[in-house]
């Protein structure tokens, strides 16, 4: 019986422990930390304390013990930071504050140590009083000593810098700022002192002065100073007036001035930019980048007399890339860098460089490296293929085709396949004569008939901008009767002229989808056997955006085909057709499938009843990858409405289901 209370106590204690474990997430890592600490396994203890603090960041005791563990292993800065955090959590604990202050002192943060000791000593703590005095007295005496030394004529960088450093540590910030500035003026290349000045100015809440000094240090200074300045500067990009202030402080800072000049250029303040570039070029004649930019500015406003000497200087300079950029602007031939004889893996390096240039969009550079790679390894088909693409991207298909032609002979099926496709696509574009054949058989539910449209056209591509051609068109239907409905004249609204039209014509090259053409010929009605003169001509615009039918992946698209055509046979009428469709292209394996909405408008100059209508409705177009490239199927369901009175000759609205096959090729 006597044992019962003991058992109860043990049970309660176990419950407490269990409860503590359940409630306190840091319990387990802290237990491990203290075990490791007792066994002097400090690294393990640090890890466990850190885990505990992650779980319970406000636990002051854990932070303190972590700090003491850090002290055991000499990680004084980490210990200082932990005490600092603990002090932040418990500002009333002077013991913590004192630990923090002592460690600040040990880790060269004297100013912070002095401030903390100062705060604590005011509570009457004699240790803090002594510690404060131990820091403050040497600072005070040092300041007096260096002031005196300067008075005695020691106007040196080190005298001013040491005085400023001591003054900053003693929070005599005005004195510090004054002497940092004086020190910097003695050695202006040491822009790290401007970082000191900026830091002190920030503490003095002189934000503009701080930005001025830091901005000057962040450009053109030693990289270390620039990095330190960047940490202190606001995250935003500096304003023009800040640049100007920084230049007033540090007028010899050419990098700063050059950056300001470029900023002004981007802001379309060319005249101001020009002035800044002029100053840079005067102060730093070796700054070829600024010389080139200033030269371009002169050139842009037609001042060749001032531009050419500057650009000449750049072209004679050591920066070959910059010189070539200038040559490109002046339309002068580029100079390739001389190649070293002992560079063994030329082709590999050149290929790599070409690849990089390609990816970065520097196609001319890529071409340069590919030429080097080709010279080094003339049977590298991958290089030939890339040469083809490089010329193609530079819109020089005449040079691209021979490279694709060479590459399609590669034993690598991937290279030869890609080259063959490119070769076929481009060859026709570069031939002197090109024959194009297209057919578009279409079934219309409205007319319950199958229509046949087609053309064979042979085009001559001379060097001048007009291309003559001869053409045979077929416009007919399978029932062979619509063309004669209600009269001798085949009305075009029946979609069939029942004629073969022979013609000769001229067309312009296509420019951004726009083309002009004119044709003269004869239309031979295969039902009437009449031959009538046929003159037609106009402009045509065809353009698509987004994922078109040939796209590699799915997405939205929009296409438009717009024609303005004069046709003599239709009472010398001028008709405008606009056929538009927008929708989504889905790529499902080898199937390309478009679902879209049609919106078509047709009108004419003479407002004829058959020639003015609108159509809209859903449609789809699709093809499989195994089909010839230019073959596709279309299905449309259209609702049409005439926009001029039909005088009872036909209903003013109609619906039409149309289905067709498009196929075209060139040789």
């Amino acid at each position, binding site marked *: 019986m006597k044992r019962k209370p003991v058992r109860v106590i043990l049970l309660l204690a176990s419950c407490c422990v269990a409860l503590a474990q359940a409630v306190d997430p840091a319990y387990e890592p802290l237990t491990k930390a203290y075990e490791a600490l007792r066994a*002097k396994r*400090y690294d393990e203890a640090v890890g466990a304390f850190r885990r505990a603090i992650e779980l319970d960041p406000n636990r002051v005791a854990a932070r303190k013990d972590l700090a*003491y563990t850090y*002290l*055991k*292993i*000499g*990680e*004084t800065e980490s210990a200082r930071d932990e005490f600092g955090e603990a002090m932040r959590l418990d500002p009333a604990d002077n013991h913590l504050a004192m630990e923090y202050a002592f460690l600040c002192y*040990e880790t060269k943060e004297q100013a912070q140590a002095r401030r903390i000791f100062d705060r604590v000593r005011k509570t009457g703590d004699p240790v803090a009083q002594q510690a404060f005095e131990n820091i403050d007295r040497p600072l005070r*005496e*040092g300041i007096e*000593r*260096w002031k*005196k*030394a300067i008075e*005695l004529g*020691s106007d*040196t960088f*080190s*005298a001013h810098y040491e005085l400023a450093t001591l003054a900053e540590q003693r929070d005599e910030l005005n004195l510090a700022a004054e002497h940092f500035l004086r020190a910097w003026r003695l050695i202006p290349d040491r822009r*790290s002192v401007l970082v000191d000045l900026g830091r002190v100015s920030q503490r003095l809440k002189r934000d503009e002065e701080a930005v001025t000094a830091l901005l000057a240090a962040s450009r053109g200074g*030693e*990289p*270390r100073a620039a*990095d*330190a300045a*960047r940490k202190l500067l606001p995250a935003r990009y500096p304003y023009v007036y800040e640049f100007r202030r920084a230049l007033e402080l540090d007028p010899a800072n050419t990098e700063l001035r050059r950056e300001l000049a470029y900023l002004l250029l981007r802001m379309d303040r060319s005249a101001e930019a020009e002035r800044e570039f002029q100053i840079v070029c005067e102060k730093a004649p070796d700054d070829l980048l600024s010389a080139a930019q200033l030269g371009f500015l002169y050139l842009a406003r037609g001042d060749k007399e001032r531009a050419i000497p500057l650009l000449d200087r750049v072209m004679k300079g050591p920066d070959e890339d910059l010189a070539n950029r200038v040559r490109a602007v002046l339309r002068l031939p580029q100079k390739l860098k001389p190649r070293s004889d*002992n*560079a*063994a*893996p030329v082709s*590999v*390096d050149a*290929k*790599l460089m070409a690849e*990089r240039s390609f*990816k*970065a969009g520097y196609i001319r550079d890529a071409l340069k490296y590919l030429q080097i790679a080709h010279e080094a390894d003339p049977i590298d088909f991958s290089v030939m293929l890339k040469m083809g693409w490089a010329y193609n991207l530079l819109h020089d298909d005449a040079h691209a085709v021979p490279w694709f032609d060479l590459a399609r002979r590669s034993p690598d099926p991937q290279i030869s396949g890609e080259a063959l496709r490119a070769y076929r696509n481009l060859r026709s574009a570069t031939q002197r004569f090109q024959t194009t054949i297209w057919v578009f058989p279409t079934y219309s539910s409205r007319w319950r008939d199958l229509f046949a449209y087609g053309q064979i056209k042979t085009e001559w591509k001379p060097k001048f901008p007009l291309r003559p051609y001869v053409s045979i068109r077929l416009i007919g239907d399978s029932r062979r009767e619509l063309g004669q409905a209600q009269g001798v004249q085949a009305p075009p609204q029946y979609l069939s002229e029942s004629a073969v039209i022979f013609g000769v014509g001229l067309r312009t090259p296509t420019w951004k989808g726009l083309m002009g053409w004119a044709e003269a010929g004869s239309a031979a009605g295969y039902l009437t056997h009449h031959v009538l003169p046929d003159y037609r001509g106009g402009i045509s615009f065809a353009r698509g955006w987004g994922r078109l039918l040939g796209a590699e992946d799915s997405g939205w698209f929009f296409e438009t085909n717009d024609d303005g055509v004069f046709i003599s046979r239709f009472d010398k009428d001028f008709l405008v057709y606009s056929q538009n469709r927008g929708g989504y292209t889905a790529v499902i394996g080898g199937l390309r499938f478009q679902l879209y909405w049609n919106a078509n408008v047709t009108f004419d100059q003479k407002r004829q009843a058959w020639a003015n209508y609108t159509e809209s409705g859903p449609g789809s177009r699709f093809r499989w990858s195994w089909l010839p490239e230019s073959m596709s199927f279309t299905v449309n369901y259209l609702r049409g409405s005439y926009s001029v009175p039909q005088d009872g000759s036909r209903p003013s609205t109609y619906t039409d289901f149309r289905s067709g096959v498009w196929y075209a090729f060139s040789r």
Partner: protein
Amino acid sequence: MRFLVSLLFLIPAGAWAAALPYFSVLSDDAGGWPRIFSAVGFQPQAAGKARIFVLRPGALGSPDWTARVENGAVVILEGESPAAELFGFRREKENARVGSLEDVHRPGLAIIWEKALELPRYSVPKQARVFAWDKWSKVPVMAGYRLGSGAVLWVIASPGERGYERFPYLLHALGDLGVEPPFRSDRLWAFFDHSYRLRVDLDYFAARWRRAGITALHVAAWHFYDRDRERDQYLERLIAACHRQGVLVYAWLELPHVSEKFWNDHPEWREKTGVLQDAHLDWRKLMNLTNRDCFRAAAAGIQDLMRRFDWDGANVAELYFESLEGLANPARFTPMNDDVRAQFRRSNGFDPIEIFQKHDEARQRQFLEFRAGLAREMQREWLGVLEDVRHERRWLDLVLTHVDDRLDTGMRDAIGADSEGALKVLGPSRGTFLVEDPATVWNQGPERYTELARRYRERGATGNDGLAIDINIVERYQDVYPTKQQTGTELFQLVHFAAKAFPRVALYAEHSLLAPDVDLLSSAAAGVRRVERMGPKLVIDSEHGVGVPWSGDAMVDGKLWPVVDGRTAWLPSGAHTVEAATSVSAERPRALRFTGDLQTAEYLNNSTIEIAYSSKGRAAVVLSGRPLKFEVDGAPGSAVEAGEASFLLPRGQHIVTFQFQ
């Protein structure tokens, strides 16, 4: 059971032999890579023999590489190449400006490239650990992963011609991937200032110093000049902890700074600057040791200091004048105390303070020569003070630390340093002449040590083994990159070159060594002239002796070798063969640590070790257990017990035997 233990010992030994420390850079232009690897003892070899391969930009991505890495090869990829792509490091479309790094090995340390580069961003494989990245753009710049029994490390750009311009912790990253340096040394000295280590666990630190290859600590002794119970106890504990770990302890003196109290108590003896202010320059409070009363008081205090503690030696350091700016800065120029001025006036007829009032080169020269002579005389005088102590404490080693004036010839006029005179003062066998790098050349490359050693050897004043070099590991005042203070590869190169050129390397300071560097220092200090395999044996030739990573027992020159500590076999200087021991016993006694110059060591029987050595000062030995008895040159008693299994052996050339149960 014993067989199993034997097997465990043999396996790692075989593993070492399988992986000779060879690297190969697969490019006509090796760049800075050989300098990186050589800094910790790896040796260049043809690709067929190498284990570490560097593939520079554009290297082809042969699928064989994967198999080689899985079988233990270490591939280092630089920038963009098909090989890098093969291992998953792929270039992306965008570029980023890279020039300011953060590294996991020392987060918070500013690593700044002298020239920032516009580089492509890369995607790194998921299994890779990113070791370093650009601070501003967060672009990964060094990453790697283990693959099979090998590893892959990728860096975004060349490490630079010197090898440390961009990735100071590249060797640490390799270490994280399992690549351990091949050799170790335990010959380093380090300077120690207790004010940075007030609350550390001294036993923990003593073990750490031993692991870092530090054989002697030079302790800032001016803090202990004045008797203070608490401070004295600290020093006693420090010395005891060091001796237990086989680390020797020297008293480092920075005269004319005597002590804080001495300065406060004797304002009348304070040194004066050229503007006649008290010479409190930087941390030092300089005293006028020309004044005879001051000298006598300070000398008595120093002798008391030397007798109060169990020092192993004394280091008289930087005993000349201020400052590096010389006459250009009178506010830092010393000496201008009344005694010196009077002495000079008597011999030269004018007050030297006038040289600051009126520019007269001839007069300036007169005073600068007088001043150099004065410094020489002070050195002679103070070495004499310590010699007096050595008459009672014969084990004491003497060191004279003196700034170099051979590479930077301006030192003589700037601070009165005259190394030729100082070498004569020290004499050929009195102690070690420790050459200090002047701050003015801290920004120069490590090759300077070779030249420095040559210039001092030409003078031959101290004999070949009496020279040492001091490397200052501090934040340099020059605009240096990538780190303000030497760390990582730059530090290892400095130590490696210095250790090749000088018999002894001292580091200033123990506290300024960054934590990540500690474990690789010992490898950087190791110098091996040749390593090759001959059947089951390794042939290793070193100038000053070397440690070879070795688990278990080893045979050296065909005999069972007793100087092994479980992770290292410590070899004497010269060429020796090492092979796995045929009979292995975990219970056999061993000498785990020995700080003297080993000549031979052997087991006289299963329980007795004999070591022949020479040492300029005491030699410390740490044994695997407490011996029953020990003898030096056949006589008991001249070794000092420093712990359960630690002993301090007499300086000079001796044979010591330890007999165990």
